[in-house]
């Protein structure tokens, strides 16, 4: 019984309700627009929504990495820039090995992908090292600095040009952007891949001791440290994993942009990643949040952006306002709920004492 009550008062349940409300509103708007002749055909139906989730799941992997950092009470705003630098590395390595060096393209691509992931990991390691070595600095300041550094470095490597690869081996990366046909429905490849990653992170974060240690660091770092947990080591590796996830995002990004590589990509992606994780229940205070919540949040943001863009005709640049509104509401509503509960409790106590003193 308690478990059921827990579920209905949980943050994930609130997110599901939010998603349902959003879907209901969009569905209604869609139907009435078709009825009014403003649209030739319905846009907001399940298969079409799933199909259109592709651009909004690009940063889903980054969100998973960001969860770890937020759970520890830190923040990493360099993840977008890490993605850029990894992608630039991927492109430049492949260009030098296969196109200019004449290496077997399959081998070259494997090596380039390894280089890409390695750079993601190294960038994360740099963040982790700086954050554990200089505890007096906020991780936000450190990663702000490294973000600028990684972006600048990307431009240094590749300049303003676009590297485009038309050979079939490199083009195979665009398979990551394909739509799978599952039961007649077009499902973006990134969705099932994200699901696999999400399950791994779920098991790790919520079902293993190491995962719990991450939350413990976020709740009280000193207490965790003095209970014998190597907090610095865990923190370091979390940053490395966040970097790796950025590189994974980058690889999907290359698939999404017709196998072309340039230095001005993935700007602002860290904000999407942070927003999805925060709506998912993670906070910069650390110590809380769940993978399921983050996954639902990604869907919510995707659905809202898609709906606002297609049904309400919001310009692409205006769609992001929804992220801001949802985020503020997601912080405000629980706070107001708590205030209201407290006020009710106080009133009840007062009534009780008044009744007792009367008797």
């Amino acid at each position, binding site marked *: 019984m308690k478990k059921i009550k827990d579920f209905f008062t949980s943050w994930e349940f609130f997110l599901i309700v939010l998603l349902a409300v959003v879907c209901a509103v969009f569905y209604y708007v869609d139907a009435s627009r078709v009825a009014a002749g403003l649209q*030739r055909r319905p846009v907001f139906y399940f298969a079409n929504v799933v199909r259109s989730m592709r651009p909004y799941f690009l940063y889903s992997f980054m969100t998973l990495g960001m969860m770890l950092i937020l759970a520890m009470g830190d923040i990493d705003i360099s993840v977008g820039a890490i993605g850029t630098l990894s992608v630039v590395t991927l492109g430049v390595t492949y260009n030098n090995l296969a196109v200019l060096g004449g290496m077997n393209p399959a081998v070259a691509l494997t090596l380039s992908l390894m280089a890409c992931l390695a750079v993601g990991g190294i960038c994360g390691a740099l963040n982790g090292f700086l954050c554990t070595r200089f505890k007096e600095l906020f991780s936000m300041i450190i990663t702000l600095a490294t973000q600028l550094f990684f972006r600048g470095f990307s431009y240094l490597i590749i300049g303003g040009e676009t590297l485009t690869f038309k050979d079939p081996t490199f083009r195979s990366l665009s398979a990551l952007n394909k739509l799978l046909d599952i039961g007649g429905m077009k499902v973006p490849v990134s969705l099932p891949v994200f699901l696999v990653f999400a399950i791994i992170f779920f098991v790790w974060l919520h079902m293993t001791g190491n995962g719990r240690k991450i939350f413990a660091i976020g709740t009280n770092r000193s207490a965790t440290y003095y209970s014998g947990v190597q907090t610095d080591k865990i923190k370091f590796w979390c940053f490395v994993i966040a970097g790796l996830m950025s590189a994974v995002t980058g690889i999907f990004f290359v698939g999404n942009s017709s196998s072309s590589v340039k230095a001005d990509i993935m700007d602002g992606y860290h904000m999407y990643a942070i927003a999805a994780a925060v709506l998912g229940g993670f906070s910069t205070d650390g110590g809380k949040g769940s993978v399921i919540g983050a996954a639902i949040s990604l869907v919510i943001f995707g659905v809202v952006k898609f709906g606002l863009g297609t049904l309400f005709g919001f*310009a692409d640049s205006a769609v992001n306002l929804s992220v801001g509104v949802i985020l503020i509401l997601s912080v405000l509503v629980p706070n107001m709920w708590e205030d209201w509960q407290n006020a009710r409790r106080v009133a009840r106590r007062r009534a009780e004492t008044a009744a007792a003193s009367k008797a």
Partner: protein
Amino acid sequence: MKKVLALVLVLSFVFAGCAFGADKPGKGITIGVVYKQSGNPYFQAGVAGFQKAADELGFTFMHDGPDDGSSDGQIRIVENYIAQGVDVLCISANDPASLVDVCNEAREAGIKVVTWDAPVDPEGRDLDVEPASAKVIALTQLDSMVKSVGGEGQIAILSAMATAPNQNLWISFMTEALKSGDPKYAKIDFVGVVYGDDEYTKSFNETQALLEQYPNLKGIIVPTTVGAPAVSKCIMDAKRNVKVTGLTLASDMKEFINKGIADETFLWNPTELGYAASFAAVAFVKGEISGKDGETFNAGELGTLTIEKAADGGTISFLNKLNVFNNDTVDAWINIL
């Protein structure tokens, strides 16, 4: 007052569109317009062209561009348009390569892809609509210069980099025309090309050298937007009677056009580009064209446009018409180009 007038005009067009929509060829067609960046006046002028064509043809269109000028923003917008089921996409691409896959997906869904202003690579588009062929761009400038100097005298060219492919192509068309024996060029003495490297200071210094070397110089053609204001400023400072023409921004050249240093300069007109792209889009949906070399389509007040082979291997259609900035028109363009 101008704005009110424009609003009234637009509204009356819209109402006219509603009233007589039934007979128009584009009725029922939806076009998704994607441009490089939202809030950019150049593309607002382009959208005005789509609006003008929509009023004439009766199609509906949506338009959007990313605020950061990124290609992944454009991919997002194209995906939204695919989900909405538009008939044609009219894209000005931030990057020719990045949009190929998403455009091909649109084409698989039966959507035609017409690019305007900046093409998507040929494998991802059906047709590209561009302002003018190299020959027209070259000869428009040359003829304007001949007119400015009264048909006789020494003229020179100040180009961008010595390696700039566009400029070199234009210059080759100009020199070819000058050598062709055409009587209108008979008294023109072409002294040569100098290179300003698209840098203001270098262009200024090169102009100074030209003016010293040729005391009887009558005009300089500047087929690059960076060079033109530098050349004009140099001539103004030297108080010489040398005319300038070329490809320029209106905002850069207003001062010099008003002072008579340049009689007229040129650049393409984004409104006409949008207008022509709309007509191509409607012709595609109607099945009148399929984007093949040699086909023609009616582009309203721009006349009939021909589809030809493009240098990148795809097909292209040129408006072959440049926008003229002179004393009368320059003010209307300074906020746009």
